[in-house]
């Protein structure tokens, strides 16, 4: 479901293709509902070892994140800190992961590559960036840690089941047409770095 409130775009799970089609690269939005964490080892398990993602991820969101979580005495969890990790590390697996799980929104840090962009286009999925290094702003948006799976992978790598409210700001980095914002920005940075190289070397002489 997509809502527009106080100038904010808020997407709530379950996420539909319509929700996804309304977002374009560079747009800012917020997420409410079910968000699962999963990074390197989880992708490897799902894609290379053929294991099923431990919970249903269809029409939900995935967060490339390794949080700090405290286990309370009664066995429930408390979120201390959570923020995005470099999404590019998951590039090798992500297109197959999207296909297998039906995930609709991927949240991480920085951009992802051409294979993921192609999968986003094919399956109407988007990638987005959460504010990096702002793990308390992110943690504040987590209402509850509803459970955990694959905890044997260690705290950063386990799958944490989060319930979030207006989690963000999130910036769309790959949209459902496969446009890749980060790659576009990166080629601008490269171009400018070539200009600067020439100028700086000249200045130094």
């Amino acid at each position, binding site marked *: 479901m997509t809502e527009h409130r106080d100038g904010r775009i808020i997407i709530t799970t379950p996420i539909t293709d319509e929700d996804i089609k309304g977002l374009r690269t560079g747009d800012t939005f917020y997420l409410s509902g079910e968000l699962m964490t999963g990074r390197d080892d989880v992708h490897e398990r799902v894609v290379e070892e053929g294991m099923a993602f431990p919970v249903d991820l269809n029409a939900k969101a995935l967060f490339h994140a390794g*949080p700090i979580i405290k286990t309370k005495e009664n066995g429930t969890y408390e979120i201390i800190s959570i923020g995005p990790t470099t999404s590019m590390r998951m590039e090798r697996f992500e297109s197959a992961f999207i296909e297998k799980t039906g995930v609709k929104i991927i949240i991480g840090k920085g*951009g992802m590559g051409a294979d993921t962009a192609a999968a986003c286009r094919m399956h109407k999925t988007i990638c987005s960036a959460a504010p990096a290094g702002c793990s308390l702003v992110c943690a504040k948006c987590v209402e509850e840690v509803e459970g955990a799976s694959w905890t044997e992978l260690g705290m950063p790598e386990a799958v944490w089941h989060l319930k979030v409210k207006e989690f963000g700001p999130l910036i769309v980095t790959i949209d459902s047409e496969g446009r890749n914002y980060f790659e576009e920005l990166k080629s601008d940075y490269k171009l*400018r770095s070539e200009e600067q190289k020439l100028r700086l070397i000249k200045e130094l002489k």
Partner: protein
Amino acid sequence: MTEIEKKSILTNILAQYLNHLSKHLPEDISSALLRLKEQESDDSARAFYETMFRNMELAAELDRPLCQDTGIVQFKIKCGALFPAINELADSLTDAVRIATEEAPLRPNCVLSFEEKNTGDNTGGGVPTVWWEIVPNRYDCEITAYLAGGGSSMPGRAEVLMPSAGYDAIIPFVLDRVAEYGPNACPPLLIGVGVGNSVETAAMNSKNALLRDADSKNSNPKAARIEELLEEGINKMGIGPQGLGGSSSVMGVNLVNTARHPATLAVAVSFGCWCHRRGRLHLDRNLNFESPTHPGFSK
């Protein structure tokens, strides 16, 4: 003081310090961020700075780590040869990491290589990293602590060039790395450049450069000129906070150099993210302490 007393006092100070370090940025970094925020003209970049400052406030208010990646703990020690707790220091450093991991809490990040096992307490397999320097005839000790995150350690690089490449070669060496990895390393960045005779001296110098204050200058005018040009040029790349564009890219560029061999020119670059958790702690012979980077740290 008995040895046991000394060790427990020292361990306690260090554990508290690491805890503090994970939650508060050093003054040079927070003022650099403030300056960049004020100079920023792009609206969404300004909004990102607001979010970053909000995060810093929350860290202090909630007493929690600024970033979930609390890194691998690295220490650079300048210890007086006559420092009364010199014998206890190595063990205290490791114990302090263990305690801070529990208390801050820090995220367990220490994965034993090849065994692929997370030790759970941020120690083991040579971690925490400790670089020692013994200073003759002194009774005090200076400890620089740094939480080396994964995203900012990732872009590091060192290479041995031929001297004929000249010091100019530092420019493309650094710029290429920044263009490729900078947007992902949580900018605005602090860039550390190292120059030396071999791959590890250059690399160590680049890390030492990150341990220097963001607004410090190399004392050699030629090296200082390279710092200045790199800072200017990288800012013009417009990477912005979070890598999504803006009017600057770096909090500073520091270069540290040592002598080279006539036949080599080794260069290295290390990256620090905006959340550059680095601090300096002075301890005197009676274990009184103060931290010039974190004046808010006291008993």
